């Protein structure tokens, strides 16, 4: 039952996609209906098989790539649309003509259906994947698609004829709905990685700039100066930069429609008739603006969902531990806490004024790993555990469980340890050194380093 409720936003997004496609490709309604239904079923079943065959980040990566490509395509189309709105004619306008053919309508509807279906299927992970389950899933997806497509067609019939959708507006809405649908699934979300890339891009740019003027920043720039430069490395810059990239395509498309030239009516002699035609053209133009503006709202919802995910992270309170005379921290594998249950187990080690947060986790490969509750890049806000990954609270980067324990990037900093009998043994001094060498310095000096 819970899975049913989880599927509702994804299914509604797909219905929205079908509705927009029916409006945008109104000359090919039956093609849109058939192709989007078939695409949805193929997407659900295909992704279900893929996720079952390749558990882990590979399958999610494929679906996420498809979403990324659709967003890039929207960017390209929005730039082309604003270019064409200036009255220039170019070969790129042929793309719109192709989409408006039977074949084009089928391809676009089918692809949108496949991606939407695949996103839905990501909610079904862990339900098993034998042949019977696949057949039952295909039947259920087909029945659901059939019912919902006809609901979308009923809504479409209620809309006024003058409510038309431009090709670029249609693409904006389809991509917005796909990204909204995927933003609630941590491993498919695009906005957080985009913000992070912006943050990293700004960071790298500043470093490159410093180097280009022959100032090795880390050595020569004083902490007080870093306070100002550090603003550029904060996550706010990443967030707002990400927002600009996120919203620009829909804004460009809305602008292109707003500035579209109205048809020439100069040849019509009667003033009232001339004005009536102009008014009709303005009305159609305003209706065409509805979808890009609505897309902006959906993009906002996707960004909000991404920034404030409704996922409940597994984030236990760190248990205090102390070192023995020999300076060793000994944690039993089984006892109050079972270190081998695949969950994140956090500990707090204090010595004098210093304290270190670290965690022990068993990876899906069955290997124990001990890591600092922080990475070498971000402010040490720590990690939480979500489905199949741990997440850096500071930059929202997802680290697949398979790669926890490896060095680099936003991965938690691994700490050497030994397994003795039924215990995990970590050297206290190594922990303290590791924390102050990487995390503490980064946190104080440059607001997390990004």
């Amino acid at each position, binding site marked *: 039952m819970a899975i049913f409720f989880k599927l509702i936003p994804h299914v509604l997004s797909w219905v929205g996609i079908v509705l927009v496609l029916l409006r945008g490709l109104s000359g090919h309604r039956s093609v849109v209906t058939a192709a989007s239904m078939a695409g949805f079923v193929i997407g659900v079943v295909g992704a279900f098989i893929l996720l079952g065959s390749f558990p882990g980040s590979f399958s999610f990566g494929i679906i996420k790539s498809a979403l990324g490509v659709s967003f890039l395509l929207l960017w390209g189309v929005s730039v082309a649309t604003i270019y064409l709105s200036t009255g220039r004619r170019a070969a790129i306008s042929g793309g719109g003509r192709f989409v408006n053919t039977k074949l084009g309508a089928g391809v676009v509807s089918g692809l949108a259906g496949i991606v939407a279906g695949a996103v839905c299927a990501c909610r079904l992970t862990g339900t098993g994947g034998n042949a019977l389950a696949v057949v039952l899933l295909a039947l259920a997806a087909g029945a659901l698609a059939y019912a919902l497509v006809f609901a979308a067609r009923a809504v479409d019939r209620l809309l006024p004829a003058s409510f038309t959708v431009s090709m670029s507006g249609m693409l904006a809405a389809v991509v917005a709905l796909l990204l909204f649908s995927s933003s609630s699934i941590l491993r498919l979300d695009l906005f957080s990685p985009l913000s992070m890339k912006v943050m990293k891009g700004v960071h790298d740019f500043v470093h490159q700039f410093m180097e280009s003027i022959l100032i090795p920043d880390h050595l020569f720039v004083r902490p007080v100066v870093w306070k100002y430069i550090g603003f550029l490395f904060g996550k706010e810059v990443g967030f707002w930069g990400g927002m600009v990239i996120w919203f620009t395509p829909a804004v460009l498309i809305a602008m292109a429609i707003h500035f579209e030239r109205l048809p020439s009516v100069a040849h019509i002699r*009667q003033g*009232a*008739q001339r*004005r*009536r035609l*102009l*008014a009709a053209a303005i009305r159609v133009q305003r209706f065409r603006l509805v979808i890009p503006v609505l897309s902006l709202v959906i993009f906002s919802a996707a960004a909000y969902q991404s920034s404030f995910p409704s996922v409940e992270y597994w984030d236990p309170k760190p248990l205090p531990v102390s070192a023995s005379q020999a300076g060793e921290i000994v944690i039993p594998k089984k006892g109050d806490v079972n270190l081998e249950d695949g969950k994140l187990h956090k500990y707090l080690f204090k010595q004098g004024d210093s304290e270190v947060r670290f965690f022990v986790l068993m990876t899906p490969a069955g290997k124990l790993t001990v890591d600092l509750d922080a990475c070498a890049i971000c402010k040490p806000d720590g990690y939480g555990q979500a489905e199949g990954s741990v997440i850096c609270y500071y930059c929202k980067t997802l680290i697949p469980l398979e790669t926890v324990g490896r060095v680099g990037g936003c991965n938690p900093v691994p700490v050497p340890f030994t397994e003795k009998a039924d215990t995990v043994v970590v050297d206290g001094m190594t922990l303290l050194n590791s924390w102050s060498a990487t995390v503490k310095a980064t946190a104080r000096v440059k607001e997390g380093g990004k």
Partner: protein
Amino acid sequence: MATAIIETHGLTRNYGDICALKPLDLQVPEGEWLSVMGHSGSGKSTLMNLVGGLDRPSNGALRVGGEDLLMLSEDGLARFRREFVGIIFQQHHLVPYLTAVENVMLAQYFHSVPDEAEARSALERVGLGHRLRNRPGELSGGEQQRVCIARAIINSPKLLLGDEPTGNLDHKSTVMVMELLKELRAEERFTIIMVTHNQEVAAWGDRTIYLDDGVLVREERLKVEG
């Protein structure tokens, strides 16, 4: 014989117990200037409101310009009034804080989109090219009525309704307004229905009908050169 632009069969309008218009059969050919006369309360304005889509009949059939007005929704009636009818009132009903040209543009706005050049040219046609930026309070009664005419014809109506348009004007202004209407009708070929108490004004029309207590009692076909 021109096609009938207005056709009524048994057209009736009751206000509670009062029967303002008793079953009326009337045909108005396209392009005709019909004067409607009668005492106060005889049903003249009721008839005009019905054919102009401002009111709905209680009974009977009413077709104007091929549209069955009884079948039209509120939106349909609004569209009919917007695109088909121009109205000139005795009290002008100009917006006092708008200039003459803005008053005309207001009618364009509710019809489709405003076009100042066209509104200016309409006022020039009615001889008010020099009064474009004056507000109604700064215009004489005859000038205000000419702004009303410009406003009424700006959307090229097929039917022009006048509810005692010269009731507030002196003889000279009345003649000026009537001549203007005659001129415009010749150019635009619209149909005019004009309610009046004044026999002299009624005589500008092609035909006059007389209403008494909601009943068509008499009809005269006149042709008096103004």
